[in-house]
């Protein structure tokens, strides 16, 4: 594990502004160690991208941040995950509340088999008594996801009638409706056309001031152009985490250099 001096300085400067932080996070499935002690944090106002070859543990890391990982059987999670300073694995924690605060956009768009509008309000309808302002929140979320103009006249149509790129922006909007504190994106643009990809990257930049964003991506160029800091994972270890400009120009570890220059992965 390489401690990152610049990160330490930054977090000292802004106090405990790290919205989500893991300390020595270890994940084991059966005897295989998927994550080998990850200490990392993401703050409001930044996009942290995680890059690394397949099997590096990037997705597992994300799934630990909102307690989705435990849905898989036979998984053991050790270490700390703190959201705003509080452990999300503590006893008496409302898991549903954690998942609303730490929203996920999956790599494949998964609209629920309902109308566009029902998809957007699904999360709201799960909580009782928050129905009043839902129309307004739906519009705000759709605008933030750069989808409003395309769907404003067809909210009652099945979500499956949208194109793949529109569906992924719908999924983004569906997460945003719940006003999360942290947004996790697991290769959100891997199957999308360039225009939808650009729309999502633009949306993330606009959203950045209000929440912490962690973007897992297989596309090194996307990490370079869209994120403020980049973390490089390899076989369950955090090799290094740096300001994106620095990591891509002067990586400290030779493995990072090899990966971003396309020599493996």
């Amino acid at each position: 594990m390489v401690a990152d001096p610049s990160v330490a300085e930054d977090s000292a400067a802004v106090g405990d502004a790290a919205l989500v932080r893991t300390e020595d996070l270890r994940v084991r499935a059966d005897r295989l160690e998927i994550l080998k002690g990850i200490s990392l944090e993401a703050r409001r106002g930044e996009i942290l991208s995680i890059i690394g070859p397949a099997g590096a543990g990037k997705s597992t890391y994300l799934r630990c941040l909102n307690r989705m990982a435990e849905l898989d059987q036979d998984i053991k999670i050790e270490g700390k995950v703190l959201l705003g300073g509080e452990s999300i694995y503590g006893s008496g924690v409302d898991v549903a509340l954690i998942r609303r605060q730490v929203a996920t956009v999956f790599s494949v768009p998964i609209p629920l088999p309902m109308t566009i509008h029902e998809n957007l309000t699904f999360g709201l309808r799960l909580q009782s008594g928050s129905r009043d302002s839902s129309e307004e929140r739906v519009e705000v979320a759709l605008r933030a996801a750069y989808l409003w103009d395309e769907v404003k006249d067809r909210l009652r149509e099945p979500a499956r009638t949208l194109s793949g790129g529109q569906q992924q922006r719908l999924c983004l909007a569906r997460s945003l409706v719940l006003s999360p504190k942290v947004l996790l994106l697991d290769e959100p643009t891997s199957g999308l056309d360039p225009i939808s990809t650009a729309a999502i990257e633009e949306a993330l930049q606009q959203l950045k001031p209000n929440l912490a964003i962690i973007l897992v991506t297989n596309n090194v160029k996307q990490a370079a152009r869209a994120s403020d800091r980049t973390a490089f994972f390899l076989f369950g270890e955090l090799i290094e985490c740096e300001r994106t400009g620095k990591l891509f120009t002067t990586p400290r570890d030779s493995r990072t250099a090899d990966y971003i220059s396309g020599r493996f992965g």
Partner: protein
Amino acid sequence: MFDKTRITGGIFQGLAALACVVIVAMVAIILGNILIHGLDRLSIGFLTRAPEAGMTGGGIFPAIFGTFALVVLMTIAVIPLGVATAVYMHEYAPKRSRMVHVVRLAIQNLAGVPAIVFGLFGLGFFIEFIGRGVDRAFFRGSLVYGQPAIIWAALTMALLTMPTVVVATEEALRAIPQSYREVAYSLGATRWQMISRVVLPQAVGGILTGGILAVSRGSGEVAPVMFTGAAYFLPELPRRLNDQFMELGYHVYVMTTQSPDVEATKPILYSTVLVLLMLTFLLNFTAVMIRAQIRKRLRYGR
């Protein structure tokens, strides 16, 4: 000159075709026979009147009504029970759980138990144990529920058809993408919210398929209701859950074996069988239509 393989092939093709013809012919003969002999007696009066003159005259309305009531009560009992079992096994129980393994084994075996054994079980368990127990507890031992009744017959039939509903529901649950469940969880759903708002609405078609199969089986079985509630002849229709009732299948059995005048009963028997078949087809058809409607409504989800 003689190509041996070609001759062998030709013989087998012929035999296979013959087998198909035999099956189609059998169905045609059975249906045709029933139709020809059964249509004579079939009239509005036959459908709306009670049997008269020791079953040599009159109609079969009480048996139609009884069968219908039985199937409805059975459905009310079997759908929640079967769906809850399947949901528990597929959504709640941990994978590779011993308990689920045992339950699944039990259900498979249940499906193989002969209908007459269900009848005896219903007599012993529902009537003697539960019914008598209720009577002792609430009616000071007088005979109210501790005797053959439509409620016990319906519950016995529900047990018989439960495996069908469980298997069909489980299949429907298995067909729902795991990703839907993940999305529901990620938007803050509890397990029950995930099941009730995402999984069950998607499984309705499969559940109804199970219901259809249960209904068409239940409306034709005689053995389970023989000891548990079906009556030889009743002047009145069942009005309470602990009344006995007449049932089409049982009525056929009674007319075939107990008739005082076989020749006079024969046309009635034919018509009754025809009605039983039509009722089964009608129930099936209705259920298929309902399912098609729901599928159409859900289509955009697929």
